[in-house]
């Protein structure tokens, strides 16, 4: 029995005031000493050299592989960040597209940029012409809207001189309804 491992003083500290007499205390203490004798008689089986080597090898490798879970954790953290960045990129793209459209509208009118959309087969229900910041609508649809006007056309034109307004205004001029917008 290794008394240093389980001394009488420690026994008394663990079981304070539980014994009626010193004899009973010593008897109980000896019974616990027997427990330790049994424990000492059953040593732990040792690891073999191969087991030790394998454990070391895998542990040492596992130290390096620890970075993978860290990456996964960071990936989870980064995922919203990437989403946020993608949102920023998407927003910038849309803003760029919107400003490009506005820039296109505000470009000086060029006669050679005139684009006419005419339905095939001579259908004149609605003819749309684009020229810089101006769009011209004419055809049978517009004729029906304004029967009292000969060859009516609707001209939507963006003004460049006036400050932005929230009110559209239009004029009738030689059969043309001019809507000037600058929102």
């Amino acid at each position, binding site marked *: 029995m290794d008394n240093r491992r389980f001394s009488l003083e420690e026994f008394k500290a663990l079981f304070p005031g539980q014994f009626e007499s010193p004899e009973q205390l010593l008897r109980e203490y000896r019974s616990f000493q027997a427990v330790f004798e049994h424990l000492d008689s059953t040593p732990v089986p040792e690891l073999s050299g191969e087991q030790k080597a394998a454990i070391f090898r895998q542990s040492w490798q596992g130290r390096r592989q*620890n970075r993978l879970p860290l990456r996964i954790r960071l990936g989870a953290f980064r995922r919203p960040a990437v989403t946020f960045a993608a949102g920023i990129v998407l927003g910038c793209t849309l803003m760029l597209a919107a400003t490009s459209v506005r820039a296109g509208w505000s470009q000086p009118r060029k006669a050679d940029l005139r684009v006419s959309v005419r339905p095939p087969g001579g259908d004149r229900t609605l003819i749309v012409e684009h020229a810089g910041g101006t769009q011209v609508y004419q055809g049978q649809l517009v004729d029906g809207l304004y029967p009292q006007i000969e060859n009516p056309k609707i001209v939507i034109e963006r003004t460049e001189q006036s400050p932005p307004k929230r009110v559209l205004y239009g004029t009738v001029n030689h059969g043309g309804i001019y809507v000037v917008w600058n929102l």
Partner: protein
Amino acid sequence: MTRHDLMSDEALIEVVQRGDRDAATCLYHRHIDRIHRICYRIVLDSSQVPDCVQEVWTKVFQNLGRFQCERSFAAWLNAVAAHTAIDYYRRWKRQGSRVDLDEIGVESLASDERVDSRPLDDATIRRQIHQALEEVSVSQRTAFVLRYFEGMPLAEIARTLGCREGTVRTHLRRCLLALRARLTVQLNQ
């Protein structure tokens, strides 16, 4: 003997942190047997112990940077081993695993008559110790192992288990009573 064998644990740790495998090997072999004993006595299943020990050393190598020299490396290592073994045991139990006594080389007893008629052999004693340690909680068992097998002071055990010294004494008392009930009563029937 290599140059690493002459170095202290703390000096070795500095070298290991720079990725020196030989230094890590030296540190490992200094402490592997003790760590294995701690894990064995907490996990109580020899088939699970190597995995548990590997988990301990993986944590050690991963977290050497957190070791503070104000505490001895052995004490820090014991704490890592105890925590890892407790977690391993609980995880293993949650998975529905059952300790197979045959796997730890313990001869099962056919009946109580056999106990009475045969002299107490190591396998019988080991079985009774095993069952006694199974009866107590893993925290109580860990306190017992650290105190009486590794000689750790009560204060250090309390620090390791995150409880008060009075709780550690209670753990030790319950574990001792369970062991005595198994070893001195049943075996002496």
